[in-house]
């Protein structure tokens, strides 16, 4: 049998991708009479919306309808968690780029031209644009959340050594290559079918229903594939679909809304930028005794998914380190910018940064290597293994990952080589950095950890698989199909995975938090196993053999003990079972066991298990321009017993490069009026092929089946490797530190653009020459919050 679990299988659509035959929503031939929509976006960041003059736009030939907040029949509310987040600005405009109206016309060009003719009258109000301003003015989306353990004040005071740090990281645009899009088609009785490029069809269904004021059963949402999503097509896809649905409902015609790249980038949320301030207490060995940290996230103008993101940042502040006394306060800052949302890692990538920053500083102060400091702080085995939120770190593989990556990267020799290179002086410097990772798997909200699947076996033995997960390029469809192939022991190509639809599997969770194959794999396993049990019972009765002697192998049911040579081909068995009036269709359902979480106390067991990893990166910088290159990266990622090593490797490499982009070249830039000016690939630079390290060794941790009962002992892989890119940032800091002979701390905010690197080099250089002039040896310098 070909294509079972743990085999390297190609993406099911790979050849269709390369031939251009894979159909994305915008490629579908539109239904007859389809109209096209365009949005009117606010030009200002904060203001009172006094009037939208639609007359000129309405007068244009081809314009069919224009809607504003007042035209929403249900609730003008697209909030995914809380309540009261406007789809169209109603009275108040809260960010530049906020939708105010939508135009629908007979052609896209007419719709877009008409949208430009809508004149909005907004009385501008003072806007809060940065985290600092929000903190100063106490502008929060909801009260701060605190994760704490022990007695921080006391432990800090008693710590032999203390230091403070401050650090910022920017947000990140998803830059899925396929922009947001939905087509809504009215059917009968006011029902709608919505094709949406969404990671969360059920939420699209709910938001569309809420906006239109109809029942969920009137809205069917479908998605076959997305051209990338990365978290950007969770809450944002929902309102895009709801606008299309509203226009379809009003015109009673199919409506397509596809956001042009610029609208997509200004109107839809991104990864949260963070500001961190911390104080850390430690001993002479570098052992961390206490951490007091502020994590301030730029939530944008509305709550959106910020509680989840900030919660995950807080629960990843410890990363792989045992911190006996801890207080971490998460502040959800409200600013007049686009509402930030899910993005691969969901707060994790930000959350792990401060400890790495602290470790580099501790190492310098103590004259140790960061690797030594990390090692003394790793969670213990059997002791010192409880996270600040109360979950024990079991089956800890961080040491295995670090050992493997140290060995494979040839760390010791290269450390010496890099130092020798840097001792020559000269304008070019090299740096080496490491990063170990622990990442919790499960949605932080326990109720979301459930999934359904629907499997049909047809009477020729071909199989149709449907589940609640969505395909965004991550290879979920092929992985879940492998699970079903494994259950039935039939070739993978007997299984057809079909478009995700709220009509087939209801009440689903988003495909997010890396849980896609964990949850849907189990659900499909359950569905397939139910059918398999029926087939087994049928075969036993039909062929008059004991049920225990029926087994499935190699596209056949075997009806006796091995060697008995009584077999029936799978398709033939299906045909017979159908004649025998056996149901060959089943749903399957899964809920993740063991998890529980108290979001107020921030205690519990939020994660079913942890995924581990480690990375080493080498960089070079030009100290005259601040330009940098990543010369080599070595990664080791725990995938449990990988369901599909080919797909998993692709996730590891792709996530790493995406993380690298976040930490280096991808910079979101707002002007003084709060308008995003990096709103296209001409100004917002994601990594290109040359930016990938020329030596790039990504490995799956060997021999590491999950200890928990995950699907075939595999582990999630979508998000964790993104954080491995933190090694690039630590390597950049190492390279910059070499300018002052590693005697000074390096302040380096992310993204480490050429400008930030050059400025960091200049600061270090200036402080270094100052300290040399004064004849000082090591200069103790840390930034003060």
């Amino acid at each position, binding site marked *: 049998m070909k294509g079972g679990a743990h085999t390297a299988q190609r993406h099911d659509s790979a050849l269709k991708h390369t031939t251009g035959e894979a159909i994305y929503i915008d490629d579908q031939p539109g239904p007859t009479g389809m109209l096209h929509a365009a949005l009117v976006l606010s030009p200002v960041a904060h203001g009172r919306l006094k009037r939208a003059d639609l007359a000129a736009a309405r007068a244009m030939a081809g314009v069919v309808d224009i809607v504003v907040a007042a035209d929403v029949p249900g609730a003008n509310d697209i909030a995914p968690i809380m309540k009261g987040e406007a789809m169209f600005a109603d009275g108040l405009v809260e960010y530049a780029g906020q939708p105010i109206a939508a135009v629908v016309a007979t052609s896209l060009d007419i719709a877009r031209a008409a949208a430009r003719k809508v004149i909005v009258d907004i009385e501008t109000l003072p806007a809060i644009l940065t985290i600092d301003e929000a903190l100063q003015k106490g502008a929060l989306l909801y009260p701060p959340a605190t994760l704490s353990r022990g007695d921080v004040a006391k432990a800090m005071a008693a710590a032999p050594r203390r230091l403070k740090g401050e650090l910022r990281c920017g947000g990140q645009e998803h830059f899925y*290559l396929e922009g947001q899009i939905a087509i809504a088609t009215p059917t009968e009785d006011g029902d709608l079918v919505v094709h949406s490029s969404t990671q969360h069809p059920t939420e699209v269904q709910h938001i569309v229903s809420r906006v239109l004021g109809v029942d969920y059963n009137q809205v069917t949402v479908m998605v076959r594939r997305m051209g*990338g999503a990365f978290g950007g097509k969770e809450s944002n896809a929902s309102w895009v679909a709801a606008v299309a649905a509203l226009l379809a409902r009003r015109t009673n015609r199919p409506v397509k809304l596809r956001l042009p*790249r610029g609208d997509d980038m200004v109107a839809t949320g991104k990864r949260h930028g963070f500001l961190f301030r911390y104080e850390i207490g430690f001993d002479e060995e570098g052992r961390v005794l206490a951490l007091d940290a502020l994590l301030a996230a730029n939530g944008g103008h509305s709550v959106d998914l910020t509680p989840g993101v900030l919660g995950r940042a807080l629960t990843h502040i410890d990363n792989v380190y045992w911190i006996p006394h801890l207080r971490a306060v998460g502040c959800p800052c409200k600013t007049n910018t686009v509402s930030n949302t899910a993005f691969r890692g969901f707060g994790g990538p930000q959350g792990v940064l401060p400890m790495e920053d602290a470790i580099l500083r501790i190492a310098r102060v103590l004259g140790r290597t960061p690797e030594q400091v990390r090692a003394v702080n790793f969670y213990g085995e059997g002791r010192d293994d409880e996270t600040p939120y109360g979950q024990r770190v079991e089956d800890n593989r961080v040491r295995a990952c670090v050992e493997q990556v140290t060995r494979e990267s040839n760390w010791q020799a290269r450390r010496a080589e890099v130092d020798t290179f840097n001792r020559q002086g000269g304008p070019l410097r090299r740096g080496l950095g490491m990063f170990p990772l622990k990442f919790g798997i499960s949605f932080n909200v326990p109720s979301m950890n459930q999934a359904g699947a629907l499997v049909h076996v047809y009477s020729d033995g071909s199989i149709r698989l449907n589940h609640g997960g969505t395909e965004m390029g991550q290879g979920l469809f092929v992985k879940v199909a492998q699970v079903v192939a494994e259950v039935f022991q039939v070739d993978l190509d007997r299984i057809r995975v079909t478009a995700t639809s709220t009509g087939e599997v209801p009440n689903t969770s988003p495909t997010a938090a890396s849980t896609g194959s964990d949850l849907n794999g189990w659900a499909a396993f359950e569905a397939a196993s139910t059918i398999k049990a029926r087939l087994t019972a049928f075969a036993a009765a039909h062929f008059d053999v004991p049920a225990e002697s029926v087994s499935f192998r190699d596209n056949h049911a075997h009806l006796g003990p091995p060697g008995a040579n009584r077999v029936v081909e799978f398709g033939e068995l299906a045909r017979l079972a159908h004649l025998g009036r056996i149901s060959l269709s089943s749903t399957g359902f899964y809920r993740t066991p063991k998890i529980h979480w108290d979001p107020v106390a921030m205690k519990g067991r939020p994660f079913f298990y942890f995924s581990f990893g480690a990375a080493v990166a080498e960089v070079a910088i030009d100290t005259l*321009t601040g330009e940098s290159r990543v010369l080599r990266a070595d990664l080791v990622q725990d995938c449990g017993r990988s369901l599909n090593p080919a*797909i998993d490797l692709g996730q590891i490499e792709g996530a790493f490069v995406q993380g690298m982009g976040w930490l280096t070249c991808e910079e979101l830039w707002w002007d003084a009026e709060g308008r995003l000016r990096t709103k296209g690939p*001409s100004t917002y630079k994601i990594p290109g*092929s*040359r930016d990938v390290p020329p030596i790039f060794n990504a490995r799956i941790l060997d021999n590491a089946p999950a200890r928990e009962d995950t699907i075939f002992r595999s582990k999630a892989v979508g998000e964790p490797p993104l954080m491995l890119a933190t090694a690039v940032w630590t390597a950049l800091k190492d390279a910059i530190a070499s300018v002052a002979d590693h005697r000074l701390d390096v302040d380096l905010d992310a993204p480490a653009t050429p*400008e930030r690197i050059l400025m960091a080099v200049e600061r270090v250089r200036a402080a270094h020459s100052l300290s040399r002039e004064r004849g000082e040896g090591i200069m103790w310098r840390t930034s003060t919050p």
Partner: protein
Amino acid sequence: MGEPIEIVLNGARRRLDGVSPAMTLLDWLRGPARLTGTKEGCAEGDCGACTVLVDRLPVNACLAVVGQMHGRVIHTVEGLRGADGAPHPVQRALAESDGTQCGFCTPGIVMSAVAFGCGGEEPTPETIHDALAGNLCRCTGYRPIVEAVARCARSPEPLPPAPAVPIDHEARTFDGPTILHAPRALAELLRLRAEHPDAWLLAGGTDLGVRVSHDREVPGRVIHVVGVPELNGLAAHPDRIEIGAATTYQRLLPILTNHVPPFAEMIRRLGSRQIRSMGTIGGNLGTASPIGDTSPVLLALGATLHLASIRGRRAVAIDDFFLGYRETALAPDEVIVSIDMRLPSADEIFHVDKVSKRRDQDISAVLGAYKLGMVDGIVREARLAYGGMAAIPARAPHAEATLAGAPWTEATVERAVAALARDFEPLDDWRASAEYRLMVAGNLLRRLYLRSAGVAAELDAL
């Protein structure tokens, strides 16, 4: 009156009846032609999802208007399967190497890879990244794509055979809502220009195409200049090169590589292959952007521009060409015919530096070009020109004066660096702050000195 646009599409001749010549090729392919394999990822020339082949060169379909395509041979991803229906080797290789995830970037990458195969180049990391610089992939991390492209290099059967259906190249006017003229002689071009000073003068369209595709502007009238022979000359003389204004970067590169390698090095970082297939040097000057990359180089080399109108011809020194922000010495009825560029001589130090956030396919934060005439270690003449440092591409008079007549030493360089602050008020925007740009402009001079002193200063050499 207007004639129909005709192209050869995937081996078959196609007439584009009733299509406005200002419709983008991408909109036409995805719309009326129902060929949806070619994707739109940005509509501004940067993502490469829309890459098609035009006369076997990769081109951004989002930036080209169909009026420009008359008589040209176009291949899209749908046209790659062999006569037997089998996928093209590149399509197979990319699929087999796990080079696709979401697949949305893939058709564009396939087309760039096919163009690379057609070009018969040696597959090295350098050539492969060069071939992929115009294609973004957000999913894969590129490693498998690079490997697949390497495997398909110099592929023996790069494309289905081209058909023997020559198209009448004489067509001169196409109309729809937009009228597009394609003059075939300079006199005709100049007459049209004089008659229609408000018409868009279109060369490669890599600047103007953004206004059509991204900003959705609909020009009333377009004069497409590339069919005029006088604008297409390209001649190397012992001490200078004459370049027709409509010469694309792609055509220019070999001659620059031979005669002015630092200029060629920079051109390899101007846009991507897709941009360089279409973009022209005349267009770069016509745009007159403060961050246009060729302008500082031409300023440093002291080029002469030959302009023409029905009133006659004139030569303008590049020093006198840029007047203000996107404002030039061109009269409304004038066009640039050619650029005359003196080559640096053996006793001149000549170098070009481009600094940008991302190495490939990015607009410069700072571009520096320097030519120093040296005699016995003394700088006799200095021409330092920068992009990104002012509202126009400009020379640095104070820094130049500091250098002129001084010995080429670290101390001299430091004085010149200090003088730069008096020369410029740099741009301050999302690409870089004014402070950074000024700092880098000075550091580039320091680097020039280090380089001449033999210090390793090339990041890309590591």
